[in-house]
């Protein structure tokens, strides 16, 4: 079964997105600490998308899909805003972030540490961010 949530491009929606992801994970009895991290990873991707790809335009929207399989969970975050180029991303240096007092740049670092696979692709003229997480014992 694929779970779907359509959301406005507003930072205020992040709470609802987290609740949606958490509910799906809990319904599959995922342990608390693991569920918390996965919720965080999805939150980070959605926050980046809302802020950088859609400039918080509430007239625009995107979709979060969760496919909970036997051995892994697959998340797809689908939108038609500005595409993100993962190949142009390099992990920031923490000391540099401190020196420049830059508040961003940590989100994708967290996602990379939490998820087993991250891909940004195009499908039917839409941007698709694919996140995969292997399930413990799966």
């Amino acid at each position, binding site marked *: 079964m694929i779970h779907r949530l359509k959301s406005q491009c507003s930072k205020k929606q992040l709470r609802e997105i987290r609740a949606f992801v958490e509910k799906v994970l809990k319904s599959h009895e995922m342990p608390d*600490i693991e569920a918390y991290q996965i919720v965080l990873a999805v*939150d980070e991707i959605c926050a980046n998308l809302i802020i950088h790809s859609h400039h918080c335009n509430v007239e625009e929207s995107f979709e979060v899909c969760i496919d909970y399989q036997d051995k892994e969970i697959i998340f797809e975050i689908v939108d038609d805003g500005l595409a993100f180029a993962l190949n142009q991303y390099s992990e920031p240096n923490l000391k540099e972030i*401190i*020196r420049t007092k830059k*508040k961003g740049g*940590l989100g994708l670092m*967290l996602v990379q540490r939490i998820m087993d696979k991250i891909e940004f692709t195009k499908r039917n003229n839409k941007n698709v961010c694919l996140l995969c997480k292997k399930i413990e014992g799966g």
Partner: protein
Amino acid sequence: MVEITAETRDGIHELIVVGEIDASSSIHLDNAISATMENGHQKIMVNCEGLNYISSAGLGVFMSYLDDFEAKEVKFVICGLNEKVNHVFELLGLENLIKIVATKAEAQAYLNDSQA
């Protein structure tokens, strides 16, 4: 949604954070720390006993003040992180950059220790 209250006692300025800090609410943490710095406090404790979620936006706020804390010789400590929130700090190794202790009592002891 996050609620932040401030209290100064015995030279320690305590920010009590309750709720969730994400990309939407991190501005409140930023404003609270900024006001604390403007008021010239030298010993700052962020009490996170009531914090049940933090995303990179919140971590980024803490990171953005570390340079100022060092330059202005401000002692800064975070206490009361629950296991899940603490793990987010650890995912990025921030416990090596920010002073984090388990309890409020430990935070007070650190701030009052002139050798630390």
